[in-house]
C-alpha cells in the first residue's frame, strides 16, 4: 500500500454543542485533555503515526485557539513540502460557509479534496480520544472491497434516557457489512457505537457530496449510513483499543479521571505511539516541601505546595500552601490560593481561586469554572 495515497480529514468543530461549557471559547478539537494535550492531538497523531502525509483540518468557528495550537503542524511532523497540514476555515471559497453537518462541511472544502491525488480519505472527529492505527483500518477497507468503512466500538449502554447515546449505533453482520444505522437512539445494553472515524474512497466521497449537498442533505450518518446503505458497500471496523468518547461535560470529566488508573494510561499511550502536542518549554513540575500529591497526573511547569489528590493538573498550575485539591481538573495556569479547598471542580484556563475559598461539588456532577474567572479571597 502506498501511503502517499491517503488524505486525512479532521473535523475540529463537529460535536461542539455537546460540551458547550468548553467550546464557548474554542473548538472541540482544541479542548484541553489529559494534562498536556488538546483533543485534536489524538486524531492528528494517529494520522501521523499511521503514515498519512497530508491532513486537512476543517473548522467552523471559534478557531483561534486551534490555529494557535497547530501553527505550521511541525509538532505532528506535518510541516512538509509534500502534503503537510492544511487549515480549512469556512468561507474559503464561494460554496463554503457555516455548515450544518459533515456533508456540507466537505462541500465547503471540495476543491481541496479534488485537488488531492489521494485514493482514500480517512476522516475523524475530535470527540474520541484513542490510539488507533489507521493503516489497519485501510487494510481492512481494501480487503473488504468496501466503499465506506466506519470505525466502531462495542459499548455497554447503561443509563437509559434522552440523549444517553449521542452516538450513531450500527448493526454489523458476519461479513462486516453495516446493515443498519440508528442515530442517537435510546438503548440499553451492548451495541456498536460509531467512533466517527471513516475510510472512504476519495472519488466516492466527492460523488456523495456533489450529489447530496445541493439537495440540502447535511448529515453524513443520516444520508449515507442510514438512507443509502444499499447503494454503497459500507463495512464496519471494530476498534478494540482503549478509547474515551466525549459527549458532555461529565463524560469529559470521567475521561480525564479514568487516566488516573495506570492501566488505562498504559492503554491510551501505547509504547511507540507518541501523542504529539504543541511544546511550551515550561520548567519541570516542582513539588515544594510539605506538598502532598497522590494518584494524579501533573504536567510540566506546575508548582505544588498544597495537597493534590485524584486530580489532573495541566501546565503551569499553582497550588498554594495548605490548599486542598481533590478529584479536580485544573487547566493551564490555574492558580489555587493558600488554604483554598476544591472538590470535583473543573477550572478552565487562567482561573484564579482566592485564599480560603471553598468550592465543592460531587464527582457525579462536577462544578465547571469558566476561562479567566477570578474568585476572590475569602
Amino acid at each position, binding site marked *: 500500500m502506498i501511503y502517499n495515497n491517503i488524505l486525512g480529514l479532521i473535523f475540529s468543530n463537529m460535536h461542539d454543542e455537546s460540551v458547550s461549557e468548553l467550546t464557548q471559547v474554542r473548538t472541540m478539537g482544541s479542548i484541553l485533555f*489529559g*494534562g*498536556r494535550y488538546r483533543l485534536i492531538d489524538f486524531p492528528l497523531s494517529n494520522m501521523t503515526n499511521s503514515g498519512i502525509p497530508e491532513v486537512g483540518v476543517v473548522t467552523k468557528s471559534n478557531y483561534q485557539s486551534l490555529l494557535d495550537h497547530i501553527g505550521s503542524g*511541525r*509538532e505532528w511532523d506535518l510541516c512538509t513540502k509534500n502534503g503537510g497540514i492544511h487549515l480549512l476555515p469556512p468561507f474559503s471559497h464561494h460554496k463554503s460557509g457555516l455548515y450544518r453537518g459533515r456533508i456540507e462541511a466537505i462541500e465547503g472544502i471540495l476543491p481541496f479534496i479534488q485537488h488531492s491525488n489521494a485514493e482514500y480519505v480517512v476522516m475523524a472527529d475530535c470527540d474520541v480520544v484513542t490510539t488507533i492505527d489507521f493503516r489497519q483500518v485501510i487494510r481492512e477497507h481494501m480487503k473488504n472491497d468496501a466503499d465506506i468503512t466506519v470505525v466502531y466500538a462495542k459499548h455497554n449502554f447503561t443509563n437509559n434516557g434522552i440523549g444517553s447515546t449521542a452516538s450513531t449505533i450500527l448493526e454489523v453482520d458476519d461479513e462486516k457489512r453495516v446493515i443498519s444505522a440508528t442515530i442517537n437512539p435510546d438503548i440499553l445494553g451492548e451495541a456498536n457505537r460509531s467512533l466517527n472515524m471513516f475510510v472512504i474512497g476519495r472519488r466516492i466521497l466527492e460523488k456523495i457530496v456533489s450529489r447530496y449537498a445541493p439537495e440540502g442533505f447535511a448529515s453524513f450518518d443520516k444520508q449515507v449510513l442510514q438512507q443509502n446503505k444499499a447503494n454503497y458497500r459500507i463495512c464496519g471496523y471494530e476498534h478494540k483499543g482503549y478509547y474515551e468518547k466525549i459527549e458532555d461535560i461529565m463524560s469529559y470529566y470521567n475521561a480525564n479521571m479514568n487516566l*488516573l488508573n*495506570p492501566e488505562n*494510561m498504559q492503554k*491510551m*499511550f501505547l509504547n511507540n505511539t*507518541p*501523542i*504529539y*502536542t504543541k*511544546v511550551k*518549554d*515550561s*520548567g*519541570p*513540575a*516542582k*513539588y*515544594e*516541601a*510539605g*506538598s*502532598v*500529591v*497522590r*494518584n*494524579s*497526573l*501533573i*504536567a*510540566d*511547569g506546575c*508548582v505544588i505546595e498544597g495537597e493534590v489528590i485524584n486530580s*489532573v493538573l495541566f501546565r503551569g498550575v499553582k497550588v498554594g500552601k495548605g490548599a486542598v485539591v481533590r478529584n479536580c481538573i485544573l487547566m493551564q495556569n490555574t492558580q489555587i490560593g493558600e488554604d483554598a479547598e476544591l472538590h470535583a471542580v473543573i477550572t478552565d484556563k487562567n482561573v484564579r481561586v482566592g485564599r480560603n475559598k471553598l468550592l465543592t461539588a460531587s464527582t457525579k456532577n462536577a462544578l465547571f469554572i469558566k476561562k479567566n474567572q477570578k474568585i476572590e479571597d475569602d
Partner: protein
Amino acid sequence: MKKECIAMLLAGGQGSRLYALTQKMAKPAVPFGGKYRIIDFPLSNCTNSGIDTVGVLTQYQPLELNDYIGNGQPWDLDRLRGGVHILPPYQTASGSSWYEGTANAIYQNIRFIERYNPEYIIVLGGDHIYKMDYSKMVEFHKEHSADATIAVLNVTLEEASRFGIMTCDSDFRVVDFTEKPKEPKSTLASMGIYVFTWEKLRKYLIENENAGGSKDFGKDIIPAMLANNERMFAYSFEGYWKDVGTLYSLWEANMDILNASDLNLYDQNWKIYSRNMSLPPQYIGPDADIQDSLVCDGCNVNGSITSSIIYSGVTVEKDVFIDHSVIMPGAVIKSGSVVKYAIIGEDSVIENDVRIGASKEETGNDTKWDIAVIGHGEVISSGVSVAPGQMIPVV
C-alpha cells in the same frame, strides 16, 4: 550575508572528568536539570540574546549531540539566514586534522565565520550552566571599543586558583591574566565567554596557528593580545554560573535548581528551550511522597523522593527512597531500593533492594565522601550496594 555578531560554541571537549557520564556522549549532551541538556543553556542564551547564528564545534562522541541539536528548531535556530551549524573537523586538500585546541577549532572554521562577515564573534563553552544576555556583553564591548572582552565572575579566593584570573584597572581594562594561578592576585575569574572584534581575532588566530603551542584561548590568544597591549576588557557578570565539568559540580548544579533564587527555570522572559520527547504527563501514584523535588513529563512515581531531580520518563516504584539525587531520563528504580546523594545515568535500571550512596553525615563525615555515580544504560542487580563515591562502570 552580513551578521553583526555570531556565536561559536565549543562543544568538542571530551569532558573526561565526568567519567562514566561522558563515555559515550560529549559533555554538552549530558542531561541536566530534569528536561534539559547542558547545551540548552548556551543555545537558549543565544536565542534570548538575539544571536541567531551559532556554529557548534563538535569532535568527541558527537552522535547524541548532533541528534539533539538537529536543525536547531527547539531553540528557534532553524533560520533562513544563519541558524545553527554543526561544525565537525574535516578533511582538506592538504590533509586532515582534529581540532587541537579551542583557538585551533575556531581557526579551522574561519571560512564559516567569514560567510557572515561579522563585526564581532562571541566564543562560548558547552559546559556551563547560567543565564546571560550576551547582547549586553556585546554592547559593553562596543562601548569600550574593545578588541576582546572576557566575561568575569567574582569568586572566592580559595576557588580562584581553579580559574583563569584577571586583574583590571579602574576602567575594567585587563592588565593581567593568569591561568589557574597558585597565588591569585584577584578574584575575577574568566567564565570562558569571550567577545572578540573579529578582524582582530582573525589576525591572532592565524599568527597563533603558525606559532605552534597549545592553540588555546586561555593559554595563547589572551596572553598574546595582552602582551601586545590590545584593548582587553573584563565584563563583570552577576548571577548564577556554574562549571559542570566535574561529577560533583554537575550534581551540585542540579541541587541548586531546587533553590530557585540560585537558578530559576521558570522565568517566562528567559526560557530555557529543549528538545521535547512527546511524553505523557507524569503520573504520581497513591503511595508517592515527593518533597522539595522536580519531576518531569513521562515519569511514573510511586515512591518517596526528597530534594531530588527526576528527569523525563523515569520510573520510581513503590517503596523506593530517593534523597538528594539526580535521576537521568528513562531510568528505572525498582521497589525496595534506596538512592542517596547519587547520579543515576540515562536508561539505567536499578533492580530491587539496591543501596546506592549515602549522605556525608551517614559516613561519619568521611573526608573521602563523594556522590555515587551510575553511568548510562547500566543495570545494577538486586541486592547490590554501591558505596558513596563509587562509580559504575569504573572508568
